[in-house]
């Protein structure tokens, strides 16, 4: 009986340890390549830092110019030479970033689980499970559904539709790597639609690190006086 209890407690400890593991930091290198339908280009390269307890999303670009972008609360700061060059009001972008979703295990539903959207159906097609998130009926003439597809229990794509079921935006998450226990997509492709034209953006990540214990000054990047 004693052996049984010890074995039970041992297994419980292991189970709690596994399920209770909390990741809090992610950092690495990024490259963003983008092209809009009206001919705007983007090639931005640098490093990113995110700590979910601080909720500051920090992009330190070294190309095409040295500048830092920090999203914190509802502010987006552009910093260069230790000065705030510009400040914009914005949604709390960090909370909807792939980094926050990865650290909080919300990638599979893109954080919609805690929103006003509700699941209207789940479908399976080949190797994809497609979940349709429906806005409330009062909004059905104005807004559309959000469809999320998962492959092998990881997020593959998101499709935003308007009220006429026309695609507004598609986002694809590919080249997943398991980084210290966190499944992270190393390539994200965005396709947004302006009329019949398509805008492309591909974001690539490399050298991703989970729970880095140093580099605190980057994770909590100080915002210079504005």
């Amino acid at each position, binding site marked *: 009986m004693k052996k049984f209890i010890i074995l039970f407690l041992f297994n419980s400890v292991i189970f709690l340890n596994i399920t209770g593991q909390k990741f809090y930091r992610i950092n690495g290198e990024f490259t963003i390549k983008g*092209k809009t339908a009206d001919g705007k280009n983007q090639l931005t390269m640098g490093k990113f830092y995110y700590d979910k307890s601080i909720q500051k999303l920090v992009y330190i670009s070294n*190309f095409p110019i040295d500048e830092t972008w920090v999203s914190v609360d509802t502010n987006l700061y552009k910093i260069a030479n230790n000065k705030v060059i510009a400040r914009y009001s914005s949604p709390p972008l960090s909370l909807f970033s792939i980094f926050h979703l990865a650290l909080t295990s919300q990638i599979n539903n893109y954080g919609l689980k805690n929103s006003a959207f509700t699941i209207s159906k789940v479908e399976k097609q080949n190797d994809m499970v497609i979940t349709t998130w429906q806005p409330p009926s009062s909004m059905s003439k104005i807004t559309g559904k959000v469809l999320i597809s998962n492959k092998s229990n990881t997020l593959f794509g998101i499709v935003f539709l308007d009220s006429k079921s026309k695609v507004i935006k598609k986002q694809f998450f590919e080249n997943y790597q398991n980084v210290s226990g966190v499944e992270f997509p190393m390539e994200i492709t965005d396709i947004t639609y302006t009329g019949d034209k398509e805008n492309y953006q591909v974001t690539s990540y490399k050298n991703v690190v989970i729970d880095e214990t140093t580099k605190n000054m980057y994770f909590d990047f100080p915002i210079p006086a504005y």
Partner: protein
Amino acid sequence: MKKFLLIISLFLAAYLKVSANEADLFSYNKVAVQTALSDLSVLESYVIEHPALAIVNVTKSGSLMINGIELFTNPFMGGGDAPLGIPAFFWGCVLGIIGVAIVYFATNGDMNQVKNAIFGCIPWVVVWIIWYFLIYDVAKTVTNPYIAPGY
């Protein structure tokens, strides 16, 4: 046992309904994307091989123009005009009234975007009202020792 398996199969079949139309939405022309971004990929390779030279080129030009390509730098614009490239109604739906205000400022007062955010905000307000009057109020009444039953 057979009946059990049959019921399970029927349940799964109903739950995992197959629809080709919606699955088709999750395809994209990867070659077209790569082709559209090919000049940027060339530039990326050049920068990786010669990082210092590339930055000097940008600095000398006095603008973010390199190899004839003008570059914008905001990593938060997801290829479109909306914040993160996500439609305004989404922000309204998830963030409520604050989301509407944020969309207003983030889009420099684009009223079409703001209108979408307002409509997105409506269910958020309804949920909040239900929560406040039905759940929070009841909970307060039950747990507040200073409110006598019947009030």
